[in-house]
């Protein structure tokens, strides 16, 4: 997975810097709290949320378990409907395919619908290197692109910017890219949206090539689905002559009927709406309506490696709603940039180390970017047990072991810097295997409890600087249990 943030420090360092940024903290707190309350209300409106969530999980699980079959079926249906299907094993191959397709049209600019897959592969940079300008048209992506910034949220990549900062970026940068911002632009959201409308309209009207991702691909009909709010998606999907969609292979659902689940859960989970303003569905090409050429680029880029992990593969159920980011106490404080990936937050912490492997410092640190509170699991509309995968990935980092990289089985070495963790785990394993020693140790700890320090010495000091050490009870639980026959003998 390329197109990410090269040379990023590990999460703890990046987060440490972010939490001291008062503006960022304020912006994130405001935005995540706004959406949290709204989401809860939107979800409470449907009494069968639990059933929808379970069905969504089952549809995705079933699809992943038979992904080869559904990919072949999808290819057949898209081709039958007039689309052209390409396959890309990694980011470089996908970028090469798209660049060649754009070059074949003779165009030097493209309009883009917000797409996580193209962010993930760094498509804009690859196109730019070949002299093709890619214009982001989603409002938040536009803010990021104009601000020469990085995305920090799946749904709202510019969530770290407040209205004042957005006004400033528009006023300063729009003239560099096309139509300047209106004179006297203020920071009211309606005016900012109007400025984006005017700035992008000329680009939409002259665009000959559009690039998108897709939220869903329906295997049995070949239908692509894009959900959006602003209408920039509709512009990119219908006005150009050529449409290129880059979509991860896990975005398949087997049947048309399956959409009835996700079209209920996705909008409520992501923007907290009963339904997002616009959803476009297209199947191949339609004579006289919309693009006359449609290319679908099916992207692997680490997804099959993720699929090979029986615990970790559930991350591929993700429908990119970003509800887990919005409820996460760590994300709220650290912000999206600290995760060093286009996928921030809890889902990013399990997706990036699987798509990219845990070789880099940032990827090896991501499974630890969590307090394991479980709020992410609770709101996930496809019930991804993020804490379970985080713990699983921590084990992989600490212990190493067999994983799949680029389709090949490899054995990872235990990561450096986790020696103390490994030693502690080994000691725990030994103690639990030797009940006599465990009992003696526990009694010793109980009797010496008056002398226990309140904080740890040496390298442990960092941990106990903000926490009290747990106090040891006066009597070990197992002794109490034996003495009172499981609490039956005394009230104590």
């Amino acid at each position, binding site marked *: 997975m390329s197109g990410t943030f090269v040379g990023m420090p590990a999460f703890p360092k990046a987060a440490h810097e972010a939490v001291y940024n008062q503006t960022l903290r304020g*912006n994130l707190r405001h935005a995540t709290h706004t959406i949290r309350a709204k989401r809860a209300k939107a979800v409470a409106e449907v009494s069968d949320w639990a059933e929808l969530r379970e069905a969504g999980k089952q549809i995705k699980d079933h699809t992943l378990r038979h992904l080869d079959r559904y990919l072949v079926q999808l290819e057949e249906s898209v081709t039958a409907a007039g689309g052209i299907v390409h396959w890309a094993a990694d980011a470089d191959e996908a970028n090469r395919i798209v660049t060649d397709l754009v070059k074949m049209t003779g165009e030097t600019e493209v309009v883009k619908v917000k797409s996580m897959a193209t962010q993930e592969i760094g498509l804009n940079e690859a196109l730019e290197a070949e002299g093709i300008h890619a214009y982001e048209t989603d409002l938040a992506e536009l803010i990021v692109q104009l601000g020469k910034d990085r995305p920090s949220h799946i749904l*709202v990549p510019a969530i770290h910017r407040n209205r004042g900062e957005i006004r400033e970026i528009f006023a300063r940068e729009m003239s560099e890219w096309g139509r300047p911002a209106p004179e006297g632009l203020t920071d009211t959201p309606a005016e900012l949206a109007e400025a984006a409308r005017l700035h992008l309209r000329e680009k939409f009207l002259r665009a000959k090539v559009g690039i998108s991702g897709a939220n869903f691909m*329906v295997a049995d009909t070949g239908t692509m689905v894009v959900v959006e709010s602003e*209408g920039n998606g509709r512009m990119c999907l219908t006005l150009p002559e050529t449409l290129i969609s880059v979509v991860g292979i896990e975005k398949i659902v087997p049947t048309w009927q399956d959409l009835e689940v996700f079209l209920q859960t996705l909008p409520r989970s992501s923007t907290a709406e009963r339904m997002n303003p616009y959803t476009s569905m297209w199947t191949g090409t339609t004579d006289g309506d919309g693009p006359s050429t449609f290319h679908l680029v099916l992207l692997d880029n680490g997804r099959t490696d993720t699929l090979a992990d029986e615990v970790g593969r559930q991350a591929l159920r993700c429908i990119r709603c970003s509800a887990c980011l919005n409820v996460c106490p760590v994300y709220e404080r650290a912000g999206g940039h600290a995760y060093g990936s286009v996928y921030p937050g809890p889902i990013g912490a399990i997706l990036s180390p699987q798509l990219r492997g845990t070789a880099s410092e940032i990827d090896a640190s991501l499974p630890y970017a969590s307090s394991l509170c479980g709020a992410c699991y609770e709101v996930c509309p496809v019930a991804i047990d993020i804490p379970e995968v985080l713990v699983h990935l921590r084990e992989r980092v600490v212990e190493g072991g067999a994983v799949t990289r680029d389709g090949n089985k490899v054995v990872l070495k235990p990561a450096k810097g986790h020696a103390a963790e490994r030693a502690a785990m080994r000691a725990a394993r030994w103690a639990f295997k030797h009940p006599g020693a465990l009992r003696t140790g526990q009694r010793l700890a109980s009797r010496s409890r008056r002398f226990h320090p309140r904080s740890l010495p040496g390298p442990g000091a960092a941990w106990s600087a903000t926490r009290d050490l747990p106090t040891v009870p006066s009597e070990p639980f197992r002794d109490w249990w034996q003495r009172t026959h499981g609490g039956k003998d005394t009230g104590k």
Partner: protein
Amino acid sequence: MSTRDVILGRVRRAIADVPRGDTPYEQAVDRSYLPEHGDRSVEETVDLLAENLADYRAIVHRCEAGGLAELIAGLIAGRGSTSVAVPPGLDEAWLAATDVTRVPDRGESTPHELDQVDSVITACAVAIAETGTLVLDGGPDQGRRRITLVPDHHICVVRVPDQVVSSVPQALPRLDPARPLTWISGPSATSDIELDRVEGVHGPRTLEVVLVNDRTVGGN
């Protein structure tokens, strides 16, 4: 070996743990979720549609079949529109009371030409009450997707109650996936500034929905 074969090979190795007799699709998904939420009469479903459309800032009008042409003429005049994009199969009677310039939906017209058109009027394929959604399927009375996108003012006529369903699960079987579909729930909006919803970005900033009662006496 083609990339296609490489990826399919990787997928097959990755899911080698899945047994041959894995639960088939038909039994893999528990569809005990509701076909619709709540118990409503036909009239109440139409009321809910109106309510949810309005909640997302669509302007909702209701009329009997006989009053439709007058109502539409009023909306166009009220907006001050001088031109209206018209799909080829639109019921001519709908525009009988206005002499506004009609701009036919033609394949040759450019997006720039369409950008000069003030309003567009279409029918729809189905409307979903629970979510306040109109679905257009490019039928003769709805036209190409772009005509309901580029003009800033969209008037959409829904025949009630025949075109109204309660829920998303009821809407999908009434739609043909082979057609290009556009689901519209209120005017264009964004949540990109501080995660707060603002109406009016690239799509039509004004969405007017006319719920015309098609079952009035004398109607069919």
